[in-house]
């Protein structure tokens, strides 16, 4: 198994290589140039020419690409023109913010969705089931920004239970207990919103898995042994019904760094999603290329992780 995992990792290299060329070329075609933020209408054209020459932008694209990729593999994605700082450390900071937000919301999401999905499936067609279906379609039908704004309005502005933007209160020194507390406090409301919006899929999926699994032959065998119903559920029905969710877990884990564009933007939370949007609108393409590369890598990693997880939870699946 370890051999295969290493091989899969090595296989990612050519995939990422192709992705990097594509991204690089696309970035070249993007309107605007990296000096947009540095120049004003009064800037002397020869000054721009000088900057362009100095940045190596007059070289053929493949030379530029090699230069870029050589630095990228060392973790140097250049400077952000809008933030005036090193891209790697900028993304690192945002990724950490996004990670904590996503982590809390994924935990909340599963804590809500798994019990509801199981109960709805177990008591299929009951009053409880119908209530859960109503809840999940209701949250499914609400657009992300509407729920976010409603929550922000009620719990942020009206009740003032939670802060309405940012990731930490500036009055705290990094590393202090107050700082950590403040960080946690800032993610609660966006995390709850994000979690609630994500529950629909998991609930519906799990519910229908439970209903299908209940009718399976091996469940009938389990019942024919005379074991208590709760054991039939815990050892047979639920375990098998959770497989598809496990199959997706790898992507869920790598998705922790992806961030939600809507949530982060609305809650003014400085994470990856917000960075992605702002870097596109300001054409900060050293940031864009780094982010797209990172997302590409995370997707590949997610699929590998999912395969590894499946091979652990399902004995029929072996990574060969």
């Amino acid at each position, binding site marked *: 198994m370890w051999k295969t995992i290493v091989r899969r990792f090595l296989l990612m290299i050519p995939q990422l290589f192709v992705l990097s060329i594509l991204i690089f070329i696309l970035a070249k075609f993007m309107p605007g140039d990296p000096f947009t933020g540095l120049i004003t209408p009064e800037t002397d054209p020869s000054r721009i020419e000088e900057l362009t020459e100095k940045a190596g932008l007059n070289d053929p694209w493949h030379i530029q690409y090699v230069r870029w990729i050589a630095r990228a593999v060392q973790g140097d994605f250049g400077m952000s023109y809008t933030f005036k700082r090193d891209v790697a450390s900028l993304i690192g900071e945002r990724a950490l913010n996004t990670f904590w937000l996503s982590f809390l919301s994924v935990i909340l999401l599963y804590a809500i969705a798994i019990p509801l999905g199981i109960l709805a499936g177990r008591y299929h*067609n009951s009053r409880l089931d119908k209530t859960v279906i109503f809840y999940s379609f209701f949250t499914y039908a609400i657009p992300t920004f509407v729920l976010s704004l409603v929550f922000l309005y009620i719990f942020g502005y009206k009740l003032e239970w939670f802060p309405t933007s940012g990731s930490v209160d500036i009055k705290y020194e990094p590393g202090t207990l107050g700082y950590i507390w403040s960080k946690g406090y800032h993610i609660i409301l966006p995390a709850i919103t994000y979690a609630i919006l994500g529950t629909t899929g998991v609930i519906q999926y799990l519910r229908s898995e439970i209903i299908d699994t*209940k*009718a*399976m*032959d*091996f469940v*009938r*065998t*389990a*019942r*024919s*042994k*005379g*074991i*208590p*119903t709760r*054991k039939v559920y815990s*050892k*047979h029905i639920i*375990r*098998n019904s959770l*497989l598809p969710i496990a199959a997706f877990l790898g992507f869920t884990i790598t998705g922790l760094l992806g961030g939600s564009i809507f949530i982060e933007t609305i809650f003014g939370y400085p994470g990856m999603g917000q960075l992605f949007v702002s870097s596109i609108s300001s054409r900060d393409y050293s940031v864009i290329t780094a982010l797209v590369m990172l997302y590409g890598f995370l997707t590949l990693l997610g699929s590998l992780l999912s395969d590894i997880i499946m091979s652990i*939870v*399902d*004995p*029929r699946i072996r990574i060969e």
Partner: protein
Amino acid sequence: METDVLLRIKDLHIGFRINESFYNAVDGVSLTLRKNEILAIVGESGCGKSTLATSIIGLFDRSNTRIQGEILFKNKNLATLTEDQLNDIRGLDISMIFQDPLSALNPLMRIGEQIEEGLIYHTKFSSHDRKRKVLELLKQVGIQNPNRVSRQFPHQLSGGMRQRVMIAIAISCKPKIIIADEPTTALDVTIQAQILDLLVEMQQETGAGIILITHDLGIVAEVANRVAVMYAGEIIEEAPVKELFLYPKHPYTRSLLHSIPQMNSYTNRLNAIEGMVPSLKYLPRLGCRFSSRIPWIRKEAHEKRPALHEISPGHFVRCTCWKEFHFNKVKGDGTYELYAN
């Protein structure tokens, strides 16, 4: 109840809900199973055999199934018990073996664990004793390396091995009754005989009564003591096995035994039995249910409300239409002979 009677089913009806109405898949079945007996239930697929078998220990979806009649076991009517009450009987007194041994085992659980499960709730064995019992059971059902197999998962075993495991599960608590629903149908022909032998051997060792469901009459002839033939949710003929094979009466039984068409001497038409069991919703429920498949028999030959008649000791036939039904019996040398009525 006579002392050697294990199970007595009286006028059992089992209906499934289809669009808010119930349709009976088992329609007034009465049966008796005695100690040390192998009772075969035969019939085409869709006759209601599995419905009958699984309903004995209540393995149906309660919200969509209606059950009427009596299933008497140890002075209890199983048809009226709750799931929890049934759990004290399932696996311990009555156990089941199913058709497809791949889908019948949990793919995520080791073989040993799946055999052990019943022992946890029906015996007072310590964990150590249970593990030993599992290995013993595996050996008993003819598995060569029980240690290894108990740690394997279902997909790592062959079909025959899996069915052996199912048998090990079924006999783990020494049940009084084993219900086997087409236990060999999904297996290779070469394996079928082995599994059947094993089943008979286990029955002789434990003295259990077996209800063996099958559509393979070869199996019936080989192992059964008594046979009940089901058609469209009813038993249409029941007899000791020899009697049934020598003197089948009901047209359906005869057609199952020898599907050889016969020239009708009056009309010179080939009178083959055609068609298949109608689906549940369109099952004929008035008069002789088989009449639509033997349209050349006079209407008057059928009873209005066909009942089971005992035509010789222990031999029951439903309806009177069999008296007009003549079918060739193939003899060993390939020549035909009419069945005597």
